[in-house]
């Protein structure tokens, strides 16, 4: 495939003497039809017609309001004759924004098709001028199974990602720059662009929101460090214990821990959270043992609640780290130990010079992934404490809330979408910084061809 600058390609197409190539600028597929690729040309033409219809009948209706996100809200007007309030339909900011994004995406896709049409036109004209073979439609199709197989394979996955991941993300990023909250719910009340107001609110403008944001952010980071560190260390110890040569029935031990994590988290965590309540099983057990006389406030004392989520997270996480480390331990090359033994290294020394460095080295990327996972560890927090105990000095958040559970509550309970999106963008920034550090450190990207 010839590598070309798209702008130069377009300029070259405009400069040709071939009328059909130049006509392809405005009527797609002209050149293809002229040189015998009738079906291909017809498809281009059909794409153009469909896009024009889409844009005129659907897209433009929303896109023209994009600047204001709608002016007239839906009204309720008293109908004297029928003696009822009649709804007068107005604009809907949400739909305007959503479909504007869709329209822009479709337009970009169409421009790509248009560019392919031009490039194809120039190529077919050149081939015709040189009297060389021009692919029939059937031959074009068969290249989709070989030279252009990536197009065949990628089109369906990319379409679903565009619709169900990329489009919603772009939409929500834009929401962060609006005032889409509980007081601005279309169609009754429209929302509009407010620029960086939400970002300013979160950082300094609005005292309670800024206080909440930094409080929750601080706990999120403390939590992620604690959760990752405890699981890493204890999971490693557990794996070493199980893989110790004196231990019998290794597989049975591993299975015991696997069963615990195979139970869906919404079940196990809900059970544990019920058991931790003041009349729950754990308090009952402690009282029956005579260790305490009044129930412990696991869920209402902030410090205790934070301790509890970290401890319960160990119950969830350690089996995973144990499995990872078991795999790593079994993969340490045996000859490393043999040569160390020849050199006279004892078991303790072998552990600190071979086993430990090897395990740390191999699991570093996975650990950073776990760290990122813990920043976004929705299930453990939401199912155990639901972010509680609720804090009066916080804006719609509790003392164990992470950024991601706060985002969820703002979205689902408060419909404060604008603030939620702002937080989402901030989470993205933290996550991307952490992930990029892994990505660069492992060098796996650069070495991806190594095994082939």
């Amino acid at each position: 495939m010839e590598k070309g600058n798209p702008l130069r390609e377009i300029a070259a197409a405009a400069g040709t003497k071939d009328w059909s190539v130049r006509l392809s600028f405005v009527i797609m597929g002209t050149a293809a039809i002229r040189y015998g690729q009738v079906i291909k040309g017809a498809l281009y033409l059909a794409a153009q017609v469909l896009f024009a219809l889409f844009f005129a009948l659907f897209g433009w209706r929303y896109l023209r309001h994009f600047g204001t996100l709608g002016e007239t809200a839906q009204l309720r007007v008293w109908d004297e004759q029928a003696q009822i309030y009649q709804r007068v339909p107005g604009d809907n900011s949400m739909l305007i924004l959503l479909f504007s994004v869709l329209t822009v995406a479709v337009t970009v896709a169409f421009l790509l098709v248009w560019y392919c049409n031009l490039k194809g036109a120039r190529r077919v004209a050149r081939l015709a001028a040189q009297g060389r073979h021009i692919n029939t439609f059937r031959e074009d199709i068969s290249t989709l199974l070989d030279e252009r197989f990536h197009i065949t394979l990628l089109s369906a996955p990319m379409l679903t990602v565009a619709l169900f991941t990329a489009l919603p993300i772009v939409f929500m990023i834009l929401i962060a720059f609006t005032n889409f909250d509980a007081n601005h719910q279309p169609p009754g009340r429209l929302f509009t662009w407010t620029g960086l107001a939400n970002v300013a609110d979160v950082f300094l403008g609005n005292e309670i929101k800024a206080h909440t944001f930094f409080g929750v952010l601080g706990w999120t980071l403390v939590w992620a460090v604690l959760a990752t560190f405890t699981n890493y260390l204890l999971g490693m110890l557990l794996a070493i214990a199980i893989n110790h040569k004196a231990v019998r029935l290794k597989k049975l031990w591993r299975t015991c821990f696997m069963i615990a994590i195979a139970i869906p988290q919404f079940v196990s965590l809900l059970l544990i959270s019920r058991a931790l309540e003041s009349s729950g099983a754990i308090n009952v057990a402690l009282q029956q043992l005579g260790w305490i006389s009044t129930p412990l406030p696991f869920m209402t004392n902030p410090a205790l609640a934070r301790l509890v989520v970290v401890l319960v997270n160990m119950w969830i996480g350690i089996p995973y780290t144990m499995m990872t480390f078991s795999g790593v331990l079994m993969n340490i090359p045996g000859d490393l130990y043999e040569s160390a033994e020849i050199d006279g290294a004892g078991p303790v020394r072998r552990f600190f010079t071979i086993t430990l460095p090897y395990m740390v080295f191999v699991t570093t990327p996975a650990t950073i992934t776990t760290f990122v996972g813990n920043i976004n560890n929705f299930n453990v927090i939401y199912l155990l404490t639901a972010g509680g105990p609720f804090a009066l000095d916080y804006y719609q958040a509790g003392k164990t809330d992470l950024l991601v559970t706060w985002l969820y509550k703002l979205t689902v309970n408060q419909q404060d979408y604008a603030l939620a999106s702002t937080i989402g963008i901030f989470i993205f920034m933290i996550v991307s910084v952490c992930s990029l550090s892994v990505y660069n450190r492992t060098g796996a990207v650069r070495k991806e061809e190594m095994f082939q």
Partner: protein
Amino acid sequence: MTKRKAARKLRAAVGLHAVLAALAAVWLLPVAWLLLSSLRQEQGAYTPYLMPRAFTLGNYARLFTDTSLFNFPRWFLNTLFVALCSCLITTVLTLMVAYVYSRLRFRSRKALMNVSLVLGMFPGFMSMIAIYHFMKAIGLDQTLLALILVYSGGAALNYYIVKGFFDTIPKSLDEAATIDGATRHDIFWRIILPSAKPVIANTAINAFIAPWVDFIFVSVIMKDNYNNYTVAKGLYTMVDKANIYHYYTVFCAGAVVVALPIVLLFIRLQKYYVAGVTSGAVKG
């Protein structure tokens, strides 16, 4: 070996086994608690004693027969349907994308991989409202089809483990086949897929499990359409404040019914799981 050394070894072994047994007990306790509660005859979430006074299988019977408020059998079929469809779609999409990035070289490859990486870093919850309104706009809100699309739509972003596996299949096999006149389409079907069975199984099983354990996206998509709930969301509704007293033991029974197959799958999956964690480490 001296006697003293042997005694020390024995003591270490006994100690290790004792520690492991204690830990295993801690880890299995909630599981035992779940089983006990599912067999308890007395209703209610909280009892002032630990061992049930009487045992019954009635909770399981109620789960499948008392469908007036909570239609568990229907939820079970919903989940099975959604899980099968999204498992099929996810597996196919993931394999396609992984093959392309692993084996084919084309101009926008790097750019597409980077975009995938960036998209994967946004928190999933951020976009769920947009997805809901989008589904509503195309008339799919509160349907099982919407749920299938949500679970499998992002499959093209989670190709890392499968690609990592494909990368280890020697490229000389492809080259030999190309010389014999095979197209890339043939290579995909005849060389890559047959040698990737473990990772295909892993992908499929993970995709199959996801709908059984998710309750967030179901809540957003289905709102109050009880009939289209999946088991996770349905069971979750059973233990909200209004229902927990009457349905707690039934919830436990339902949880056992859902957890049992997953536990069995997990135990069979152990070895793939370990391989997946270490080879897929590239993903952020």
